[in-house]
């Protein structure tokens, strides 16, 4: 690409090293970013991508290494310093102030002043502009961010990074909670930024996305740079091989499983936060995908089923027993398990250890004479850490210190550990690398083979199409349609999700999933 060759690099990082205690997160890593270039940083979970970018933004101080911006040495004393030097960043974990409104969050740290006072009109204009840019003008600038869904929060996070006129923009998994459409829109925005000579570092585990949007790449493995080059002419398989040191054959492995009798059925179930009642049923050994845009109400459905939200009407029946009115502990007792889409806010107790997080929902097996057998708990957790290839120092490590993807794996491991028979998964592969993803798909398949039922909410259509038996589409809080996965294609799903109706000819089939 011409832009890459033409300009001198806007950013150069060399010899960057960072240790966290005994963990070497980065070991002598470097890369260059040219003006108007989109540079992808890829690697497995825990490879060190986020750490590298936090060093760039000033949020983390490196142990060694040099950085230059426009040829001048750059050593930020903190994130504020980084921002002033023209580096803005979308962090992997949402970093919003829940009590502040959308506008206040977007303008935080760069408020417009007029004669010492806040210039609200000017700020409102900017906020509207940037919300328009991400194509979500319907998000009200006056809503406290705490009330938004995760997807909407991520949009606000993106908007905040865009409101800066920065020279370098780092995006650490910006699309992990976005719908396909919003992702597309983001790529357009990135292209626009390129045209304005902004250097973009793009981190994502959606490699197709990366291929489409990036000009060049650097691959990290275990904190070391193992390869870089231009994206053109690099095949996906090559990237994966660089990442993990081997090739993988199937991204969406299918495990043969048979669908049995119904285990969960919802009859006009209406949770307090749901827009409309939902009727559906889920069978043993079935993987039912749920697609929809941000705010389609999928999360609310899962929360209502699991007893986190109050139920206003209808009923949920699990294995013949009515669930309505139950609290989560009751739902768990009936074999339900929920993986939250908000792993930092709700999914994990960040200050507790991996062991405590993984076993919290099912400590029973370790109880002996009323006391916990901590050694056995640790052994069992160590087993899961190995099985899921979680990068952690051991069962005792605090979850906060894990990389984003590994945190997600811990959350998922909890459901597996708890042996839930109905798994409600809300964006379970969020932030997980390709290899681990395919591993997770395999487990889900195996769970189905064991006769467990899986409700799989995802905004990543390929995985829905790849592993689900049936896919239901939600639009504005209501279920549009459920069909066997084979009866859908990506375009059809998108159309149903955005317009709330199906393209027509295919017949719906509620009763007999494939």
């Amino acid at each position, binding site marked *: 690409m011409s832009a890459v060759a033409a300009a001198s690099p806007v950013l150069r990082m060399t010899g960057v090293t960072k240790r966290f205690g005994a963990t070497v997160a980065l070991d002598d890593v470097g890369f260059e970013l040219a003006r108007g270039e989109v540079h992808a940083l890829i690697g497995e979970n825990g490879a060190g991508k986020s750490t590298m970018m936090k060093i760039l933004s000033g949020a983390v101080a490196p142990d060694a290494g040099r950085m230059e911006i426009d040829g001048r040495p750059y050593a930020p004393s903190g994130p504020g310093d980084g921002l002033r030097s023209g580096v803005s960043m979308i*962090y992997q974990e949402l970093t919003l*102030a*829940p009590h*502040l409104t959308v506008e206040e*969050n977007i303008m935080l740290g*760069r408020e417009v002043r007029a004669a010492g006072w806040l210039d609200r009109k000017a700020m409102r204009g900017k906020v509207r502009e940037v919300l328009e840019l991400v194509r979500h003008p319907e998000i009200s600038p006056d809503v406290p961010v705490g009330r938004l869904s995760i997807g909407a929060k991520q949009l606000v996070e993106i908007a905040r990074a865009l409101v800066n006129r920065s020279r370098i923009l780092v995006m650490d998994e910006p699309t992990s909670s976005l719908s396909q459409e919003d992702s597309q829109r983001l790529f357009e925005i990135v292209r626009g930024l390129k045209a304005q000579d902004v250097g973009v570092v793009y981190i994502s585990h959606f490699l197709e996305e990366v291929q489409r949007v990036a000009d060049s790449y650097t691959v990290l493995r275990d904190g070391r740079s193992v390869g870089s080059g231009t994206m053109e002419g690099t095949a996906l398989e090559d990237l994966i091989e660089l990442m993990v040191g081997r090739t993988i054959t199937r991204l969406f492995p299918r495990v043969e499983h048979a669908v049995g009798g119904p285990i969960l059925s919802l009859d006009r179930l209406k949770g307090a936060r749901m827009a409309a009642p939902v009727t559906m049923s889920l069978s043993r050994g079935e993987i039912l995908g749920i697609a929809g845009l941000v705010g389609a109400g999928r999360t609310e459905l899962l929360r209502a089923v699991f007893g986190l939200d109050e139920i206003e009407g209808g009923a949920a029946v699990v294995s013949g027993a009515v669930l309505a009115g139950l609290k989560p502990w009751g739902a768990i007792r009936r074999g339900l398990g929920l993986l939250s889409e908000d792993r930092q806010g709700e999914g994990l107790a960040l200050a507790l250890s991996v062991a405590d997080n993984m076993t919290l929902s099912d400590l029973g097996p370790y109880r002996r004479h009323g006391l916990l057998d901590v050694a056995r708990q640790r052994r069992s957790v160590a087993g899961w850490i190995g099985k899921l290839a979680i990068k952690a120092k051991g069962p005792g490590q605090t979850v906060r210190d894990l990389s984003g993807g590994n945190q997600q794996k811990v959350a998922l491991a909890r459901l597996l550990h708890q042996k839930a028979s109905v798994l409600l998964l809300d964006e379970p592969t969020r932030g997980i690398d390709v290899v681990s993803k395919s591993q997770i798909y395999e487990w889900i398949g195996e769970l189905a083979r064991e006769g467990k039922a899986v409700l799989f909410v995802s905004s990543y259509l390929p995985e829905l199409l790849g592993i689900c038996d049936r896919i239901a589409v939600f639009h504005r809080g209501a279920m549009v349609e459920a069909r066997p996965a084979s009866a859908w294609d990506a375009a059809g799903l998108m159309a149903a999700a955005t317009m709330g109706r199906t393209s027509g000819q295919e017949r719906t089939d509620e009763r007999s999933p494939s």
Partner: protein
Amino acid sequence: MSRRRQAGVSRALNVFGPFIGLILVIALFALIPEVQGRFLRAANFKSVATQSVIVALGALGMTLVIISGGIDLSAASNIALASVITAYAINAGAAPLAAVVLGVLTGGLVGLANGGLVTRLRLVPFIVTMGMMGIARGAAKWIAGNQKIDAPMTWVNELMAKSPRPSWLLLAPGIWLVIIFAVALAVALRYTVFGRHIYAVGSNEATARLCGVRTDRVKVLVYAVSGLFCGLSGVMEFSRLTVGDPTVAVGLELDIIAAVVIGGGSLSGGEGSILGTLVGVLIMSFLRNGCTMMGWPNYIQEIIIGAIIIVAVALDRLRHRKD
């Protein structure tokens, strides 16, 4: 249509909401025939307002601290220290104005020390200010030589007079100061960058830092401002008592914090308002006033005030849940 009407109702609730508790308390005593005549008099209201000045000034600063996610347990000791310093200075022959400035600055200094320790040592505010509570109280007793400091009467003692000297003031100058500073702080919280940053730091400090907010500076400033208000409150305490008393205001920090929380402040930060805080202060003052007027024994009063604190906050939460 109906949604708009609903919005109107909820806006009305939001405007009057904070006052509900206060109105209830006043109504309670106004309905008791035994005291209503006395209770509803302007003179009584004036006296309640004057009594509220000391807590109110402390609570104004505390509101900022609590919004920023902190707490200041040293407030009451700081008030005592400032009152002693003011008395000491006047007694030593300083000009009253200089003494007042000195008292206020002393408070500010203690606040600054709080802020510095919280940010430099990264300690929880509860501990820092609890330590400072002992330090300031000890210093006050030390300076005062374990005694009250008698100071000659000056215009400073007029600041809290129920019948102010230029009679067109109507209310004690201290009350006017509270009003002026309350308006100033409310405006600052809403219409300045500093105000916004206080909310941001309290709501999510990590985020604020990542967005380039100088969180440490915000916090130091917040504690310093709170200290200045304690200093002013101490001056008012001196004005009211006409002596500098190192043992004054013991335990008052809890009243101050309660006022902020009754007024909608959240101890986990990010929430709170000046108007709410003032209402909180008045609720507590009117309660004390009414109970005393009723001649209820102190223990009944203690029980009632304890219960009302819970009820007031419960009402406030209920209101919030509605909208």
